[in-house]
């Protein structure tokens, strides 16, 4: 795109953009960084390596990882079915995939808790028949995060699957490949970068998720207490340094994940020849 001299409005729009961005996003975010400078390095390390904090990080990351893996597996199947097959109600299901984006997390939280708590209709069924408890256990966190993760995976995989060049499949099959070989050697390797991106997006969102998790988690310290909840607990105890140190650590990890996702997306575009 060439720079046009007659195009008006650069100064006002860029000034407003930078001003508003600074006011709403950059200055507030920078308070977290500056506030954590008030801590000495030793204080910071002490807070972060406290047993309860380490346990919360372990809970947050392991449940987000588990949920992202499960959501990637099922999300891939859902995307595949929505792109490749036709069946009654396909449009309805297609629109429904975005529900976790549109439904407020608190609503998702109380509904999932109601379903999976030991007295809830699925919770009771699993408890009586399989001796399996999901509500108020780390498994409950995984369930809530799967709900949140679905659209990330499906919406990342779907367009790539849609634009997949079926001539590659035809070529492979005319050369004698079985359907399974076509899938594992041709289709899956081409979809994999998109699936990985969806996985990473779901994981990044899951680590910071709060609303849908707290109702179903049981929130037991060391067992089912997630990092965002621990930050709120610290705040409620007026432990500002504690809240700040944990939040800064979370923020740094989120940014590293963001960087990774951007690299992944760059790789996806490069592979699909859009760059």
């Amino acid at each position, binding site marked *: 795109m060439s720079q046009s001299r007659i195009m008006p409005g*650069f100064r006002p729009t860029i000034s407003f953009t930078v001003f508003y961005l600074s006011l709403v996003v950059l200055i507030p975010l920078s308070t977290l960084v500056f506030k954590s400078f008030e801590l000495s390095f030793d204080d910071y390390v002490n807070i972060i390596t406290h047993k309860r904090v380490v346990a919360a990080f372990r809970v947050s990351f392991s449940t987000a990882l588990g949920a992202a893996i499960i959501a990637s597996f099922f999300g891939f199947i859902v995307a595949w079915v929505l792109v490749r097959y036709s069946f009654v109600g396909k449009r309805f299901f297609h629109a429904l995939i975005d529900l976790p984006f549109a439904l407020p997390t608190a609503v998702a939280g109380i509904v999932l808790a109601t379903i999976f708590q030991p007295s809830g209709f699925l919770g009771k069924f699993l408890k009586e028949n399989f001796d399996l408890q999901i509500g108020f256990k780390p498994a409950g966190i995984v369930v809530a995060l799967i709900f949140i993760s679905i659209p990330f995976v499906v919406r990342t995989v779907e367009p790539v699957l849609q634009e997949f060049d079926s001539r590659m499949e035809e070529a492979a*099959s005319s050369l004698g490949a079985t359907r399974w070989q076509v899938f594992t050697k041709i289709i899956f390797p081409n979809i994999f970068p998109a699936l990985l991106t969806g996985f990473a997006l779901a994981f990044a969102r899951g680590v910071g998720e709060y609303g849908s998790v707290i109702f179903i988690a049981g929130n037991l310290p060391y067992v089912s207490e997630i990092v965002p909840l621990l930050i*709120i607990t610290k705040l409620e105890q007026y432990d500002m340094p504690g809240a700040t140190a944990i939040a800064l650590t979370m923020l740094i990890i989120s940014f590293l994940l963001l960087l990774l996702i951007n690299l992944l997306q760059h790789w996806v575009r490069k592979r699909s020849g859009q760059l």
Partner: protein
Amino acid sequence: MSAAISTRVHQSTLDDANWVRWSLITVALGFVILFLCVPLLLVIIQAFSKGFGAYFSALSQPDMQAAMRLTLLTALITVPLNTVFGVAAAWAITRFEFRGKDLLITLIDLPFSVSPVISGLIFVLMFGAQGWFGSWFVEHDIKIIFAVPGIVLATLFITFPFVARQLIPLMQEMGSEEEEAALSLGASGWKTFFLITLPNIKWALLYGVLLCNARAMGEFGAVSVVSGHIRGMTNTLPLHVEVSYNEYDTVSAFAGASILAGLAIVTLILKTLLEWKQQTNR
């Protein structure tokens, strides 16, 4: 065209076997029904579990009404601000070349990668009693945290990228030839924007506004940190749902939830329509 392609694929030996097809459809739909349909249905069932009377009396409680009003107010302030920002940012980014453009785009997306709880926390660190500007506001008797301004600020932060993110890729792809033509024929900047740009971007703009609004009305984590949960005062509808649920007031919790779920359904329907509009307009 898609029908032609699908019949061709159906006839070829490339297609999945019937048993594969049906088992995959069963797994996919089973998963979607369990995780998406059942929760949605359950909101309705729980909300009406004690009858229509209880449902409507829960909705007409003063605290519920106050929560709805606060949620509407928050959306009414944040959505227009972030919409104006989104259009201005998209104009600057897609119509001009300048250094640091990629960085600017990354910074605009930043709020998406920050945990909602941290998005609330930063405003407590700024305006709370121990915060940067806290003492100044206390002296002047202005409440930001545990008050409406804090809720608005946190929501502004959370919904910041929605509109810009929809417009930037679209306006990039459109290019600026049409606008340049109008300008070189003597149209003013504003006239060019309203007669050329706006008609071209209107569906994407509405789409962004829709998503921004859904998030503004439904945000929970960030708002929860700054609100202080004062009933009838600083509880938004999602927070009122939480408080009612924790007090075992199931009907109130799910009545509030049903309003938010209704909002989500309307959002999904409009979203599907707008996606369809955007595709046919290309």
